[in-house]
């Protein structure tokens, strides 16, 4: 066999998130349990779950960003808002990072989704993952769940794939995000009105809307390859 030439280049993006050349791994907050059939592996005695970037736009963005990928993650132990929670793929990894086993990091992850089908998975997830707060509600109707976020937060993610997603994002950031807080907007071209000028014109328009609403667009991350026709905007709120 000879000597082990299979040395991986890995970087820790946070206490929990590890980046490999092709995939991400997070320390499993519920040991020996996979959430969506992902693989589990021990790295020097700690169990990690594989974060499949083609199933998670947040994961894809971390792989694709040209900046420091750690900037896309919230501070461990903080409170964050996730709009459009889906089936909990990204949520589970975010929870690994934010809360850890038995919420040792004391984080809170408020996950909002409109579809009862998605919430079904999330409520199961929440049983074993303290710190995860699933909310069945409309991302636009802040009054219904806004009281769950008494203080402003520093990290907000939105992936709602419905018309008017940019306005939803801007409204949510104004209400919940601190000055200088990071907002991540995953944008699906097909959900916006087609203007006939092509996708990049569409994304340009979104970028200028964000900029005129008091955001600094740090990066526009193309997710092509992982998630086609999707772009993730990483912005900071400046007003």
């Amino acid at each position, binding site marked *: 066999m000879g000597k082990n030439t299979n040395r991986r280049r890995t970087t820790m993006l946070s206490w929990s998130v590890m980046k490999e050349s092709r995939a991400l791994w997070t320390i499993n907050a519920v040991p020996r349990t996979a959430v969506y059939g992902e693989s589990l592996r021990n790295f020097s005695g700690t169990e990690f779950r594989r974060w499949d970037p083609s199933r998670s736009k947040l994961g894809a963005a971390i792989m694709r960003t040209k900046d420091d990928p750690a900037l896309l993650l919230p501070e461990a132990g903080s409170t964050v808002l996730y709009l459009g929670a889906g089936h909990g793929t990204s949520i589970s990894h975010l929870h690994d990072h934010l809360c850890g086993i038995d919420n040792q990091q004391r984080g809170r992850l408020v996950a909002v989704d409109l579809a009862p089908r998605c919430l079904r998975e999330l409520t199961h997830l929440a049983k074993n993952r303290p710190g995860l707060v699933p909310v069945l509600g409309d991302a636009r109707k802040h*009054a219904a769940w806004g009281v769950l976020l008494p203080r402003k937060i520093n990290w907000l993610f939105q992936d709602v794939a419905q018309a008017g997603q940019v306005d939803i994002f801007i409204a949510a950031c104004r209400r919940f995000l601190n000055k200088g807080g990071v907002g991540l907007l995953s944008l699906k071209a097909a959900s916006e009105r087609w203007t006939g000028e092509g996708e990049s014109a569409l994304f340009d328009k979104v970028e200028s809307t964000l900029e005129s609403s008091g955001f600094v667009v740090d990066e526009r991350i193309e997710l092509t390859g992982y998630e086609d026709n999707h772009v993730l905007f990483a912005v900071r709120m400046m007003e």
Partner: protein
Amino acid sequence: MWLWYDWRAAAVADDHGSILDVEQWDGFYDERTVVARLECIAAGGLTAEAMTLMERFPEAKPRVHGELDLPEADWPLPDDDAQHAADQAAIAMATRGVAQAAGDPDRRLEHLMRASDEMRSTFITMEARLVEWVGLFLPEARFGHDRSSLGKTVSESESLEHLSQTLGVSLPPVGPGKSEWKSLKEWGGSVSVFRGQLDRLEHAIRQLAEEHLPSLSALLGPLLAARLCVEAHGRMRLARLPAGTVQVLGAEKAFFNHLKTGAPPPKHGHIFMHPWISRSPRWVRGKISRTVAAKASIAARVDAFGGEPWGEPEMRLLEQKVEEIRAAHSSPPSRRK
């Protein structure tokens, strides 16, 4: 002056953000009560604490926590324990919301409808195979249109000889092996089981549709009513669709082809299933389906917004109208202009 409140506290502040008065709920954070409070806020109501302060400061403008016009102030925000109680309540609310989805007839109807579609296509394939299979061994057998009992007959036969006697045909010299016959017999059993299951599925759809969409069911029959409701993704959405969309619901491919290439637009979608349209001559189908779709769209609105349900008389009126259209166009239009 502003009255701030969240699910557990309320406070009054002047325009500069100095707090004038505070009321806090000091009950135990029992889950049911917290849920009730969160729901009250979600519905835009005032909590008991906010109400008390409202009486003390009638001129204060009430705002729930987080509204943008509130001034900056040191509002009495929840501590960790309170926040934990709110989180538990939110999880309970989400769980209950998910459970309530089972009470949504739109979702139930969708599962029934899709199940019946899948069952039908399976049944048709299996029945066709059975007819071919029996036909191979008993070439003289003719089933014509009445195949309904074939599955049962096959499954109840002891042997191919027995089957040939029941069907009244002669037995050819070559027959299936023992295990081969058993497979054929069981296949026949499955076909007859599937037929029964399909009938029960359709019965369930009829029952649910008549309850959920009484007017539309009275007008078009429960199965078509259910189909339209499922294709429109729910009763409320169906009620909001224009009649023209109801007319071509189910003909999306033809419709978008029309938009894209300028081909003639489809005259009917699922609504074609109705005998008023499918049994009418080709040249009046478009006219009839327009009329029927317009009435169907009104019926859907009656159902969705809780109107007086339609029944037989409305259906008769529409039938009369359809008859008039047919009578007015009894012969095909001439091809020349």
